[in-house]
């Protein structure tokens, strides 16, 4: 390898192979945790967005409270009288155990909801309201080995599988859809729904779609105090499940990154200490403090980049596994999360530079004479 400033830095890092490898493991685990957790929470958010977009949902009407889980079903009549609204479909969502190991999202829909338009029924038919019938997403049906005509137990009630469907959203393709009234009974939500999903009429001539939507939102809040109409994209990003997932992912990742940063800081501090005499030699040869500091920072950044690269691969692998496991397949997307991977890599380099800055500064401050005398 031709000698350059960067290759010199990397060779310094690689001189203590075991210590460097252990540090890289630490960084890799931290960044891997970041990519996995944040990637998972983002794919969760993305799946929500896909679900709304595929069904053509414009607004979700929910309670104004943060943990908004319950809307009176009678609100539907008020919504349908609002001139901008074409359809207001009630829905209930919950997480339920289908086996001791597998929890899945369960939706309660009306049999005639517009949201069925986003589903492709592969086997069987749509359920009927008021019947103990269930439709299973393709992924879930595969993992549970269920087909049309089989039964499935939920919360002590037995449902007949009447349809298997495919959906563009991971939240649906690994989920169960029940008749709304049956889902309300299972969830002890008689007369209540989680939200209304609203489809707007086309905006009249001379009115923009954005203005039309805003008018609908204002009308909902005026006619139904206590409720709010949230644009679908915003609902996907800001619903309580997604927010909690993001918060948990970032909180855990930051702790992992902090541990990784401490690992780099320790490695760089040790490295600078061990190479004190060498730093003295470099200073004697005319290297300025800035050049010494740059060298050590590049070493720290190289550690971050190498560990980050490993972490990104680790995280991506973990996301692929989560996307394949029956327990998590309904939430995790298998699409390559390019943004999260790049963020992970950049964060690793940034963590490296920050963690290396104090050792770099201390190394640069060494007096050449004192450094040369160091034993």
């Amino acid at each position, binding site marked *: 390898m031709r000698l*350059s400033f960067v290759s010199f830095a990397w060779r310094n890092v690689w*001189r203590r192979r075991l210590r460097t490898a252990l540090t890289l493991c630490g960084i890799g685990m931290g960044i891997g945790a970041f990519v996995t957790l944040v990637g998972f929470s983002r794919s969760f958010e993305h799946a929500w967005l896909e679900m709304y977009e595929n069904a053509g949902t414009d607004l979700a009407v929910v309670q104004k409270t943060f943990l908004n889980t319950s809307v009176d079903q009678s609100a539907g009549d008020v919504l349908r009288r609002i001139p901008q609204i074409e359809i207001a479909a009630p829905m209930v969502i919950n997480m339920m155990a289908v086996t001791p190991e597998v929890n899945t999202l369960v939706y309660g829909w009306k049999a005639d909801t517009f949201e069925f338009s986003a589903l492709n029924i592969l086997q069987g038919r749509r359920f009927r309201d008021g019947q103990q019938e269930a439709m299973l997403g393709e992924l879930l049906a595969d993992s549970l080995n269920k087909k049309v005509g089989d039964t499935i137990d939920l919360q002590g009630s037995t449902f007949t599988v009447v349809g298997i469907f495919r959906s563009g959203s991971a939240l649906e393709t690994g989920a169960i859809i029940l008749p709304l009234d049956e889902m309300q009974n299972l969830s002890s939500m008689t007369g209540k729904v989680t939200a209304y999903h609203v489809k707007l009429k086309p905006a009249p001539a001379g009115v923009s779609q954005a203005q039309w939507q805003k008018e609908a939102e204002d009308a909902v809040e005026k006619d139904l105090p206590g409720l709010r109409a949230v644009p679908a994209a915003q609902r996907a990003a800001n619903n309580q499940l997604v927010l909690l997932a993001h918060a948990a992912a970032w909180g855990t990742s930051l702790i992992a990154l902090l541990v990784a940063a401490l690992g780099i800081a320790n490695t760089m501090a040790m490295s600078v200490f061990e190479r004190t005499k060498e730093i003295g030699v470099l200073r004697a*040869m005319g290297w300025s403090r800035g050049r010494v500091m740059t060298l050590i920072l590049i070493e720290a950044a190289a550690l971050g980049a190498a560990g980050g690269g490993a972490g990104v691969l680790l995280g991506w692998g973990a996301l692929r596994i989560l996307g394949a496991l029956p327990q998590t397949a309904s939430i995790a997307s298998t699409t390559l999360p390019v943004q999260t991977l790049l963020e992970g890599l950049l964060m690793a380099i940034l963590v490296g530079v920050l963690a290396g800055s104090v050792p770099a500064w201390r190394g640069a401050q060494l007096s050449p004479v004192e450094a*040369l005398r160091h034993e």
Partner: protein
Amino acid sequence: MSSETGRPGVGTAGAGSPWILEVRDVKKSYEGGRIEALRGVSLGVAKGDFLAITGASGSGKSTLLHLLGGLDTPTEGSVLFRGEYLGGASDGAACITLDAYRARFAGFIFQSFHLLPSLNAMENVQVPMLGSGAHHANREEKARALLVELGLEQRLRQYPTQLSAGERQRVAIARALVNEPRVLLADEPTGNLDSVNSAKILELLAQVQERYGTTLIMVTHDLDIAATAHRHVAMRDGRICD
């Protein structure tokens, strides 16, 4: 042959000075003045001179070499290179930073060679030029030429652990010369060598000094080695004693 050369801190430093390097009434103390390594030393070194500084351990000879090489600054007094103050002047007189002086005008040779273990001979010689903007092809060409000149053409890709002590010191000399310094400072350059290699290195240094007109300042405790220099100053208790 020492030389008393004026007062420290004079603003017109170096005007018409015969010295390439000059120390003026320099004192150096450590630990808040408890240890006095130099107690008022004045010395001039002419361009192309070969000066040996001798003395027992603790006499201050290495401290003086560090000040002459811009590795350290005096507690009192001044060090001048070609009439410019090293490390700055209090009265606005011409000065040169220690980093710039070491990078452009000074080369160091150490008793323990101090080669970087992760780099081979060619790469060690290039280190002073790394990050200075020098093109890699130029760096390699200069390093190769120097190592060949110093008889190491068969050892270019060897790492320090694969070289003999004499070869390591020759690599260190090449490294010290690569930036074409005006002043070469050697701290016990033969201290870790056997007599055969010592003689070779001394001969090499003398050749380099003669061929390039480099000013050579060598610290040694060995009077026989000092006798090979053009000039010789002896130090005792932080002062020049002859």
